[in-house]
């Protein structure tokens, strides 16, 4: 979103040129489409009831139903649509209330690909139930829930849920390796690598876990621990009744690439904890870890 002053200036300029709110909204959408990393995007998933067949949805139908659903519930909304070549439908919604006009400065953005059950939403401060209902109704789904997956990089979120990132599978038919940009080092033959085998093992394990390609870009991973404190039996202040609550947050400009480089840099043992490496596969970066029967299943309990 253009910042407040920017948008105000834009409005004045457009008014000078007799352009309307609609043009300003479209310009706002174009700006956000070009710079989507200025917002944090959350992924929502829509689900069907078992047994319902997927019917091919018409884009025009969706737009019509969505608009009608929102406008019947809330009179003061501005809704704009814009379609892009990669089959993405961008929706911009400026919310108002019963008595106030829509606030153009705090618009919500929604990105939806028609034949997928995923919706990407940013800048939503209120009216979540209303929006969810409209989405579900318009797209012929039954239900929608928030996935624990958030990032600034919209494309990476799409890569994770559409499974477009490189995963490794065990196969007899190895896919051609991508060329790595490694400049051949001038190795002095007098230098011997003492831990050569260990280094190779780390490389191999890393490759099995992370694959060959670039990782999707997320900025943080958060683990809410609700596990019991395990300390010396003498220190029975904390050992007992209450789980020890704490939150561990990893943040980085590019978290997954950073995790990938930990073991080769010697800062962590390979293989890394599955809690860290399961992020793209489980399509989530917010975890709740309960008392251990089996930690991985606990983290799937969801928030």
């Amino acid at each position, binding site marked *: 979103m253009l910042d407040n002053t920017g948008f105000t200036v834009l409005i004045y300029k457009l008014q000078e040129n007799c352009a309307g709110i609609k043009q300003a909204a479209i310009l706002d959408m174009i700006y956000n489409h070009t710079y989507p990393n200025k917002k944090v995007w959350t992924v929502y998933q829509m689900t069907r009831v078992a047994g319902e067949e*997927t019917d091919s949805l018409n884009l025009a139908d969706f737009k019509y139903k969505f608009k009608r659903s929102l406008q019947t519930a809330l009179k003061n909304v501005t809704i704009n649509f814009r379609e892009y070549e990669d*089959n993405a439908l961008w929706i911009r919604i400026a919310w108002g209330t019963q008595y106030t006009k829509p606030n153009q400065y705090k618009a919500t953005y929604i990105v939806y690909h*028609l034949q*997928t059950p995923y919706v990407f939403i940013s800048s939503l401060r209120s009216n979540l139930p209303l929006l969810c209902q409209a989405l579900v109704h318009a797209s012929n789904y039954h239900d929608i829930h928030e996935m624990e997956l958030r990032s600034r990089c919209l494309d990476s979120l799409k890569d994770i849920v559409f499974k477009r990132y490189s995963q490794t*599978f065990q*196969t*007899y*038919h190895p896919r051609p390796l991508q060329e790595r940009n490694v400049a051949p080092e001038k190795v002095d033959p007098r230098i011997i690598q003492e831990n050569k085998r260990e280094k190779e093992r780390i490389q191999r394990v890393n490759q099995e876990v992370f694959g060959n390609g670039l990782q999707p870009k997320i900025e943080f991973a958060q683990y809410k621990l609700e596990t019991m404190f395990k300390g010396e039996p003498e220190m029975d202040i904390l050992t007992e009744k209450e789980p020890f609550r704490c939150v561990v947050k990893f943040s980085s400009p590019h978290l997954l690439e950073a995790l990938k480089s930990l073991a080769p840099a010697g800062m962590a043992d390979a293989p890394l904890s599955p809690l860290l490496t399961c992020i793209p596969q489980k399509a989530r970066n917010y975890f709740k870890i309960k008392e251990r029967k089996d930690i991985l299943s606990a983290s799937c309990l969801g928030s």
Partner: protein
Amino acid sequence: MEEATAYLRDGVLSHLEKLEAHARTLALKQEETQQQQEKLARLRARVQELRLQRDELQTKVNLQQVGLIRQERGTGSNVEPIQAVEARGKALLKWEVENVKSMLQAFHLTGISGKLTKQGVCFCISTAYERTYLDSYYLDLLIQQPVQIRHHSVPIFIPLEEIAKKYLQTDIKRFLAMLSDHLNAYAGRKYQADQLQEHFSAFLEGTLQRNLLQNVLLFNYDVETESKTFPFRAKLVYGDVTRCLPTEAIITCKAGDVSASLLEKTAAHSNLFCHTALHKAFDSFKRAAERLEQTA
């Protein structure tokens, strides 16, 4: 006998003495010869032994000499006995490895191949369309009750969950076959649309609109007839997602008034698109246009 009578004149005892002495010397002689003979025999045996030893040593020396000569010649074939065997063993192993690799490659080319993993099996579904191999998709299955998909690289718009719900637990073969059909059809449609965009963009007006599953295509193209160019609009709907040809082809002419011949043309095109691959249909347009140019 005459000696005996001569000795009898001297006396019997002296005769007996002489006889005794004679016997003794004879016995001594006999003993001597016997000893000599034994000695001879022993020496002969020794000679045999020494001869045998000599022969052995001689053969050893001969071999070594031969070896030295061969080394001098520098052919290295003196090490043949051991290393030749090794080389042959390596070649055999290499041949076996190549054999297995090509068998696995053959399996992969059939379209559905798999590899056992620690907890299950990883299937690879390779797609192809008309002699071109396209992408491969992977499915990692956990073999347990119930069978679970651990992770996969199937695109989101392929109804994997639905197919799995129907067939995964009961009939894995059918599950894989259905999934393979869906993926191959998707890959085929995508390939046709890609080919159209790449090679026949001269015919297209504007962009080719297509959805994720590649089962609804919208495009505008020009048709030259009666020495005029008419803009046609095509909407191809692939109702059956396991097929590569559209179930419905709606062709409209965007020009103002449409003559009967144009209507015929739209019908003909509609039929063509429903029965021929997209890029091949445009290839026929291209050839028709070239023929027209040549005759004109």
